């Protein structure tokens, strides 16, 4: 025991210890931030992929409607261009969809909005519609931003897809 004490050096000063602790905690804090950022990025990319899949599903429905029943599609569409005209099921409808588990999926909302009708001149019975343009918008409550809406940390994200359809045999 006596021999051990003889070997003892002066040790580190308080300042040295504090600097070491500060450096260590800086490294730990930055690596934690990095990993949680990576996790959030991963979830966000998963949500985007899902949203694009919903948008493509809606585009497929509109395209098949245009090819199989163009007259029916043109007849059904409301005059008001700002409404959503489809839900993810195959029905034309007016009004915007709300977030609900019974819609496309929990937290996702799909709107297909007719933004343009193209005719030769002014659209009329003598000038039939040659092209319809839909903006498909998918927005969703991002789970990667915060757990609940009450936290105030909720972030809505959205993605868009444009679909143009023409009657068969029309350029």
């Amino acid at each position, binding site marked *: 025991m006596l021999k051990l004490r003889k070997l003892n050096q002066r040790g580190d000063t308080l300042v040295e210890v504090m600097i070491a602790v500060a450096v260590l905690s800086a490294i730990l804090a930055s690596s934690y931030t990095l990993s949680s950022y990576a996790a959030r990025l991963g979830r966000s990319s998963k949500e985007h992929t899902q949203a694009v*899949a919903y948008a493509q599903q809606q585009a497929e429905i509109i395209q*098949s409607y245009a090819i*199989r*029943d163009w007259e029916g599609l043109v007849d059904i569409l409301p005059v008001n261009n700002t409404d959503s005209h489809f839900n993810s099921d*195959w029905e034309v409808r007016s009004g915007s969809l709300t977030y609900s588990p019974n819609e496309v999926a929990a937290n996702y909302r799909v709107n297909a909005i007719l933004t343009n009708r193209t005719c030769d001149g002014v659209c009329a019975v003598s000038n039939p519609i040659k092209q319809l343009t839909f903006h498909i918008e998918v927005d969703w409550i991002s789970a990667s931003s915060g757990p609940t809406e009450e936290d105030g940390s909720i972030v809505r994200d959205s993605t868009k897809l444009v679909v143009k359809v023409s009657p068969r045999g029309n350029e």
Partner: protein
Amino acid sequence: MKRFDSKGFTIVELLMAMAIFSFVMVIVVVAFTQLMRSYRQGVTSQKTQSLAREIIVDMTRIAHESNEIKTDTTGTTSHFCLGNVQYNYNSAANTLSQGNSADCTTPDASSEDLVGDGYQVLDFQAEPKSNASNTVQLGANISLTIATETDDLLTDTNACNPALAGSQFCSVTTINTAVGLRGE
């Protein structure tokens, strides 16, 4: 040796060095094992997903060439026909086959299984859809669930149980999509 005046390590120092070394080694081994596990999990789910996507992409292509949808059921097998192509899902054997269709009932001799060994079809649903006046068939909503053939790793709700050993070899993937008819 004594001339170099090297004092050597004490047994305590040696023990401490060995303890620290084995602590580091344990961390390295655990990290490496986890890495291999998540790599295998990634490979498994990638294979399952691309299998499911392959089937859906082909089904979409066939729908684009067809102009008619038929469905029927015989026993545990449900039939889904796009034009001349017939899909048969057997919910007892968890298999999905594709062949030629005559009247959309009994699978014909040309029917081939779409998923190979090691995979199973947990669910396949096809819901035909028509236009607003119900006069023209437009397409169908499709739901396809493919899983690895590891039933002991699945929970009651057909999800992988990550708590089980070997769960890296388990994967379940579901694709919900719409296919539209575009044939003349």
